[in-house]
């Protein structure tokens, strides 16, 4: 932010970058072979504040788009609004590459339709060798990935996360993914339906 922007209280809209999402398709190989993390087949996009009318149209458009794109590997889509009033698109496919491609093309469509500032994050679900969930979250506004590992063995409401494991994963994936360097942006996402 420049001096005059600060002076006049202007803020440049942060450019939204879905391009770096594709890093996940190559990173997945390393995640699976070196870290024994397997994709669950689920991935999602979370965004906010689109009224139900336009959202219905958007949903129809996207379903059409997926039908046209899904030739070899079928990607199924569901959408819902969570308890924090954020909209979700959740995609399921056994093929991880088409999942990444779908997340990318849907993000691109949302941006083209003018919803770029509403896009919050994309999320890819994995499970480790013990079957515990591990997520990689993509922050559109920063164009970076970070890991999110909920402490799944505690069923209490304290919402603990496994920070050491997150830091370890970030360290070993440094070359493969554009990582979020600033730990302050490693926001958790609780009550996931992905």
């Amino acid at each position, binding site marked *: *932010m420049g001096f005059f922007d600060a002076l006049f209280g202007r*803020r440049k809209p942060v450019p939204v970058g879905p391009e770096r999402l594709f890093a996940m398709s190559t990173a997945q190989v390393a995640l699976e072979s*070196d870290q024994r993390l397997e994709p669950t087949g689920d991935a999602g996009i*979370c965004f*906010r504040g689109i009224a139900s009318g336009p959202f219905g149209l958007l949903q129809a458009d996207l379903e059409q788009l997926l039908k046209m794109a899904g030739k070899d590997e079928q990607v199924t889509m569901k959408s819902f609004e*969570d308890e*924090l009033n*954020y909209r979700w698109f959740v995609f399921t496919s056994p093929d991880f590459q088409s999942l990444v491609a779908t997340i990318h093309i849907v993000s691109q469509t949302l941006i083209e339709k003018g919803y770029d500032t509403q896009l*919050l*994050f994309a999320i890819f679900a994995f499970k480790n060798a013990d079957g515990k969930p591990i997520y990689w*979250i993509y922050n559109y506004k920063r164009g970076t990935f970070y890991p999110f590992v909920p402490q799944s063995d505690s069923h209490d409401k304290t*919402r*603990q*996360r496994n*920070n*050491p*494991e*997150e*830091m*370890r994963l970030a*360290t*070993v994936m*440094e070359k493969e993914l554009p990582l979020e360097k*600033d*730990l*302050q*942006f*490693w*926001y*958790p*996402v*609780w009550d996931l339906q992905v």
Partner: protein
Amino acid sequence: MLTRNRPSWYKPDNGLAARMVLTMFLLGAIYVGFVFVLQYFFNVGFIPLLLIAVAIAAIQFFFSDKIALASMGAKEVSEEEAPDLHAMIARLAAQANLPKPRIAIIDTNLPNAFATGRSKNDAVVAVTTGAMRELPAPELEAVLAHELTHIINRDMLVMTVATFFSMVISLIVQNMFWFGGGFGGGYGRRSGNNNDGGGGAIIIVILASVIAYVASFILIRTLSRYRELAADRGAALITGAPQNLASALVHIDGIIHGQGGVSIPKKDFRQAEAVNALFIVPALKGDEVASLFSTHPSTEERVARLNEMQRQMEQAHYNG
């Protein structure tokens, strides 16, 4: 022990060792230089000061554990009082091939820990109740392993020796007024009488003292930071998990510095978004000058080094 080559993360950090030796050498050089200046201008006078300093250092060294514990309000706890903490430290000590130290608890919310004591056989590890409450077990274990490494590395002894001459210099500076007259015979009321060189000599010694004191202060702080990094490394080797200490450091930094600290947020992405708009400008971080004078390296630097160890560990694993 296996006979094949140890993986690189297990080997000593030669760069760190070299910087530590250089720092100690510079520190020694300053002390020797200062004594030379003192000797050159006055043949006598600083021997009593040296003796006083030796006495103070000896007292400091032999009673430091009690002084440190008392000043922090630490209370030694028995195995019955804190069975979990005792069990955790006993396990770590066994792993580090160290006799189990005495254990003390400090009743404060700030998450912290320290180790003190003259030798491996006479050491105390103190932990705050804040650290026990806020840190998950693997992170607390990593912090305790860091403190045990301070004991293994004899950091108490090293830092006492390193600060010893600095203390002598500061004694001289503080007592210049009293000793000045006796030393050079040209200070205070008598100056400018018939002793021409005395006043000049005093000024030179004062200047030399100030320069030596400032330089030694910076070097001692530098040495202290290197010892901290070495202790981080040792902790990672004892626990076998550098990321546990890295996470603990970030955790502690976040609690101590709040918004300005390096911390992983607990707030949900969706709830944080609204708040975030207000926090566009990152909180001001300490600059280079601040780091020159601090006893501990920055959390960022420590985490970066631990991450590097983690990388090397996993690399060694894949290379077989």
